[in-house]
């Protein structure tokens, strides 16, 4: 399995990443991807910007572990996760997850698994800038519930 994990301030190129996933092996028959964007409305309206910090070293280890788990459940030929840090504004791409597999089912499932657990286990923290001041975001219960579905056997 080919794994690429990058935590970076600069923007990524989804087209280039998807292309790369498709050429890792001649066995690849499906590439799926997810791109997360910064919303302008979160828990409070009027988000003007976002600042992201992370735990260097641990973040990459956690993401590698999540990819490894996905590859044990489904056939994964390659996986790429790119997450941005630093200052971002609404509509900025913030995260890229891409998976290459022989068949679409494995590629879809593994991609969804990776983003679901990235949201609950990868060591990133968002701070929102709003008109009423800066505030650290709290974990959404719905994200925790979504990730839990993979381990409870309901997915």
């Amino acid at each position, binding site marked *: 399995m080919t794994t690429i994990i990058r935590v970076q301030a600069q923007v990524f190129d989804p087209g280039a990443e998807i292309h790369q996933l498709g050429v890792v092996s001649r066995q690849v028959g499906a590439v799926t991807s997810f791109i997360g964007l910064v919303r302008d409305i979160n828990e409070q309206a009027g988000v003007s910007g976002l600042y992201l910090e992370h735990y260097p070293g641990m973040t990459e280890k956690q993401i590698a572990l999540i990819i490894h788990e996905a590859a044990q459940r489904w056939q994964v030929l390659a996986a790429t996760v790119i997450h941005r840090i630093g200052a971002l504004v609404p509509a900025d791409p913030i995260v890229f997850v891409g998976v290459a597999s022989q068949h679409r089912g494995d590629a879809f499932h593994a991609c969804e698994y990776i983003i679901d657990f990235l949201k609950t286990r*990868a060591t990133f923290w968002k701070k929102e800038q709003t008109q009423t001041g800066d505030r*650290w975001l*709290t974990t959404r219960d719905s994200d925790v519930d979504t990730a839990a579905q993979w381990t409870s056997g309901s997915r």
Partner: protein
Amino acid sequence: MINVILFASIRETLGTQDLQVSVPQPLSVAALVQHLGQTQSVQWCEELGRDNVLVAINQAMVSFDHVVQCDDEVAFFPPVTGG
């Protein structure tokens, strides 16, 4: 020495990014929090003792009964919010 590091809201509340802590012998994370409450300020105990605070030793998630060894990196942080 134990290297304690803090992230996000916890770092801002306690006004500290990292701290070298000397303890006489290995102790649990929970005991380390008590120790910090005594040597730093009671606010440390309150902040790190919150129900939702997570702890990692040497960049792997552990529970508060995990024993901290000399030279360990002990990180405290709030629930993650990436993606």
